[in-house]
């Protein structure tokens, strides 16, 4: 395999770990951390492609900068929502959010 494939493999693995965390974790703080992991996997893929693939230098790096920025905004919103809910329900466990069903 060429170097890019190894980097993409790393990105896929990291992404899967993050996705597993989002799906399996019940603590919303840990869910947000897992989301960050997924976005960082994206960054690795983008920067690796920019480095190793011919004819695509700038865009990937630029893209990863935007992903970093958006990830920060996303965490801010997410933590705000979690804190607002903690004030109302005194819990951050996702499975306690079960008011609505069906």
């Amino acid at each position, binding site marked *: 395999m060429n170097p890019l494939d190894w980097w993409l493999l790393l990105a896929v693995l990291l992404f899967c770990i993050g996705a597993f965390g989002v799906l399996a974790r019940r603590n919303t703080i840990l869910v947000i951390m897992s989301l960050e992991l*997924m976005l960082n996997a994206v960054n690795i*893929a983008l920067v690796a492609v920019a480095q190793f*693939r011919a004819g695509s230098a700038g865009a990937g790096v630029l*893209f990863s900068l*935007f992903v970093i920025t958006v990830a920060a905004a996303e965490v801010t*919103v997410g933590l705000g929502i979690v804190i*607002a809910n903690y*004030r*109302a329900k005194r819990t951050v466990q996702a499975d306690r959010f079960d008011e609505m069903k069906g």
Partner: protein
Amino acid sequence: MADANNSVLVILPGIVIACTALLVFMADTFVGRRKEILPWIAAAGLVAAAAVAAAQWLDVDELGSLWDLVTGRGSAVFGGREGEAGFAGMVALDKFAFYCTLLFCVIGVLTIMLSDAYMKKRRDAMGEFYGLLLLVIAGMFGMAVSTDLIALFIAFELMSLPTYVLAGFLRGDVRSGEAAVKYFVNGAFSSAVLVFGLALLYAASGQTNYAGIAEAMSGLGADAESGLTVVALVFVAVGFGFKIAAVPFHGWAPDVYEGAPTPVTAFMSVGIKAGAFVGFLKLFTIAAVGLGDIWTAALTVLAVLTMVVGNALALPQRNLKRMLAYSSIAHAGYLLLGLIATGASLDSAGSSAVLFYLGAYTFMNIGAFGILVWIRNRRAFRYGLDEVAGLARTMPWTAIGMALFMVSLTGIPPLVGFWGKFYLFTAIVDAGMTWLAIVAVVMSAVSAYYYLRVVWYLYFREAPEGAEVVADDAGPALGSAVAVTLAALGVLALGLYPSPLISAAQGALRVLIGG
């Protein structure tokens, strides 16, 4: 390549919307107790943005195909000035974007009017509400103009992040909070999946520009359909499926739609869906046009599941808000048919049917949710089906409106919902996928059960005890009444005379699939 001035010209409607959002946030701190002015500022900003877009539309002397615009071979001429793809090809102005901008502004103004009943009781939070709403609309505008993966991602997030906050707008209300958490976790997860798909698409083609991707893919020939490309497109389709609540990625939708404030639910079910659809329509039909086989197959699976499961789950619902949530899932399934038709036949009929349907759906669904807001404004109401029984006697006009929207959502002529479905189903038949159209028609017939059941309750059931009209503390909300009336007029007028909207939708697409 365009110079800076033209770049600004390209996204001028979006700039107007975003600046109005900031103005609303700032004005919020200065107006003191006179918060009633904030919705007017927000609505004025949207009208101004719509006027800019309309003026640009009329000012276009000659518009090359979007394909030419993106690749830099052609240009649109605005009253003598050239205005084409801006910001190094990240965004491109075309009739498609004009149509979508006008649609989004209509959605925004209707939502602002609709939330009148709601915000009267929550005056302190008016600034945040209208400001965030405008930011979402700015993001939706970005979805319509972006022609680059980076711009698409930013627009997607700008559209999503404020919506999470709006869903949880009732601070202290456990249901609204729960809706926000569920929407945030699902939404952020889907964004991550989407952006990973975009990164893989970039890895497969080496380009982030739509036209560049399409050229790189066609250059690769048979190698283009590699595993990497397939995975990339599937990831993009999954991220998109989450946003439009397509089955099997719909799990969040009923809870979020039920828990969120009703005007926000109306906005999410129409606006976010429209924004997602136009963004992905552009991505799929320009960047991935040569890979139609792959994403058409993925979307066909999504469409069938969405239509069948969405309608089936809506059948037993006795909470009207939840019923409309499931029905909105089913409508996403119908809309997917338009994308599939475009991918299968490379003909613009499917895409213009999507644009027409988004317009039609705006009026009927905002109207349906608006009726719920209005009833709740007039008396105690917890969105139960039993509670609207006999409404024809206590609130006759409201009952007529509700019946109108339900019949239109079912797709019965002469209302606009019929034309929307007619064009979608015709497009899919013309694309040679008749079986899919048959599934859609059968599921529409199934949907008649739960839509017309509401009409049955309105007119042929006795009213429950205590259903008489009681004045709301804050008085009747005229804005909500006007919004519902406008939506009803839209459903009726466009149903009887749909050709203006149809020709606009077709004109918007004529440039999209030119190359």
